[in-house]
């Protein structure tokens, strides 16, 4: 590592922040692009599981709230791709890599949404897991990314509220409605435990070393468990992991080790809904290409 890079590393590790025009090592720029692009892809792909339920939402109010959430997530994708563009990778290239399967998106968006219970679990718990990661990005060493995270976290908090409301309506309803939530939780627990990644020590995680992330994977998962396991259990729901418990002396949550090979397979495009989702994104990109052409031609 050359002297300039070492200095840069010291700077970010002691809390320093970097702006778009500042000098940065190539490795830092490449890692930023990859990480932020994946975040943008996830926001964009994340609306597809929910989109399936717009037409099937149980009430008009729910339909409006779900549509608003979807607009928020697409808005996040736009903000995030803007940050990637300023780092040197155009949005069209990000979308090309996404639909070709070259770029990744978050594991939770590779799964189908079978019932309205899934919509509640996603908005409440998947967004809760996401907000843990995103809050840690408020301290990202790359300042333009950290700044937009403020707006994103603020909007995610609405989603959690919406999701919790959906869940509360169901668990206070009929036995069938309660069972719908329990069944959705049973299916979503594994993806939720995968969400923050394998427990690699922070100092061996390049994203932490460059202070792109401000906490390690396990720390994020522990925060999620600490915040949400009690909230899930107080509703009378059962988390499908008999080993899950809090060690009182240390405050650490113990759980059954998730299958990390499965996570790797899912995020590399081998999840139960990966192919279908990518096919849909490809199709909609082709479908709306004419809009882009018309708008750009008219504006020119």
């Amino acid at each position, binding site marked *: 590592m050359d002297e300039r890079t070492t200095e840069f590393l010291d700077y970010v590790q002691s809390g320093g922040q970097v702006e778009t*025009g500042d000098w940065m090592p190539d490795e830092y720029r490449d890692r930023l692009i990859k990480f932020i692009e994946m975040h943008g892809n996830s926001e964009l792909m994340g609306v597809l599981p929910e989109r399936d339920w717009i037409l099937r939402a149980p009430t008009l109010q729910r339909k409006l709230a779900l549509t608003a959430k979807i607009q928020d997530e697409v*808005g996040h994708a*736009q*903000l995030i791709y*803007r940050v990637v*563009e*300023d780092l040197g990778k155009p949005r069209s290239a990000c979308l090309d890599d996404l639909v070709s399967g070259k770029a990744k998106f978050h594991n939770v968006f590779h799964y189908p949404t079978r019932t309205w219970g899934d919509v509640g679990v996603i908005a409440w718990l998947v967004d809760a897991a996401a907000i843990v990661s995103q809050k840690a990005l408020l301290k990202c060493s790359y300042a333009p990314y950290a*700044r937009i995270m403020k*707006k994103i976290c603020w909007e995610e908090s609405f989603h959690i509220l919406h999701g919790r409301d959906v869940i509360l309506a169901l668990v206070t309803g009929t036995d069938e409605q309660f069972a719908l939530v329990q069944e959705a939780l049973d299916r979503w627990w594994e993806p939720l435990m995968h969400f923050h990644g394998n427990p690699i020590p922070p100092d061996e995680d390049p994203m932490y070393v460059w202070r792109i992330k401000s906490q390690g994977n396990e720390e994020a998962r522990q925060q999620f468990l600490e915040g949400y396991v009690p909230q899930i259990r107080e509703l009378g729901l059962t988390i499908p992991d008999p080993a899950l418990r809090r060690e009182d002396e240390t405050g650490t949550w113990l759980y059954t080790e998730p299958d990390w090979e499965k996570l790797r397979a899912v995020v590399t495009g081998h999840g139960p809904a990966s192919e279908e989702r990518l096919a849909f994104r490809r199709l909609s990109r082709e479908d709306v290409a004419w809009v882009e052409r018309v708008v750009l031609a*008219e504006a020119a």
Partner: protein
Amino acid sequence: MIFEVFRQERKGQPFQHAGSVTAPNEEFAEIYAREQYGRRQESVALWLVPRDALHEIDEFPDEFGMKYRRVDGYSIKARLREAREKAGTLELAPGASDE
């Protein structure tokens, strides 16, 4: 084109940089900025500025060492002590008993 967006949260507050939008012209930039930064009533006003119109200055050299314009240009502590010693009031000074 890239437009930088500045937003004002409440009347009387400064405009702060919020982010940027890519748009083919001002008309589209306005629509995008309204959607991104105003749809939840979180702003009372927005400024849209084409990025090319911004002129950034980020270096402030001080070749002449004009420290007298800054707080760190004045070392009051040592001189005050000397003055108090001379006047014989050192024990009366605030915090003297802590030393």
